[in-house]
């Protein structure tokens, strides 16, 4: 069918496949690093419901809409939902995980700088999805 030489096409396909292999390997490695939760991470229970976030620290402290954490510490979020699927997102720290009713999803992070960051919902959950927001407040360590 193709009487003409087609080595350029083979080279092109080889380049594309090797690029895809590189992407896959890099992504695998990065995900492996990112999913390794430090053993001493403090657990924070996050609950999403229409249309606000609540948080519960290990020591029982509860917060609504605001989350206070300390810089330099590792935190592991255990994310629950009371009604529909939401997604817990702290974009500045690239924290994103669905809140699915009937299961608990986990994601961790270790904030490094003092400051305030937005918490938002990243999965459509109805009328006030657009305003299901909160604030992450990273403070100096207390000791």
């Amino acid at each position, binding site marked *: 069918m193709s009487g003409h030489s087609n080595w350029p096409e083979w080279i092109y396909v080889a380049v594309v496949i090797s690029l895809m292999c590189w992407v896959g390997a890099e992504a695998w490695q990065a995900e492996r*690093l990112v999913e*390794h939760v430090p053993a*001493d991470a403090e657990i924070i229970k996050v609950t999403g419901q229409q249309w606000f976030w609540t948080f519960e620290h290990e020591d029982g402290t509860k917060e609504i809409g605001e989350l206070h954490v300390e810089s330099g510490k590792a935190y592991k979020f255990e994310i629950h939902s009371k009604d529909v699927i939401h997604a817990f997102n702290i974009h500045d720290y*690239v924290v994103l995980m669905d809140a699915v009713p009937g299961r608990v999803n986990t994601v961790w992070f270790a904030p490094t700088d003092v400051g305030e960051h937005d918490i938002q919902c990243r999965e459509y959950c109805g009328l006030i999805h657009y305003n299901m927001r909160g604030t992450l407040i990273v403070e100096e360590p207390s000791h």
Partner: protein
Amino acid sequence: MKSIVGLFLVLAVLIVVPAVDLVFAAGDEPGEYLDRRVVIWNLFFRMMTIAFVVGAVVSGTMIWQVWRFRESHPKAKPTPYEGTDW
């Protein structure tokens, strides 16, 4: 020429890989935690570098050939198939 530059760019980016690995080998103590932002954005920027290099090659090729093989180009000549029912 373009492909050499592209190749070197790609290699330079790839060299960063072991470097990243070493620097961000995650520890389990305060002060040694991984900063997930850095890992993720680093991967993103490396991928965007490759994507834009490949994109420049592909779209550069397309722009050049659209200019060179347009029918109004002074050197445009009929293809071997014109006059037949290709």
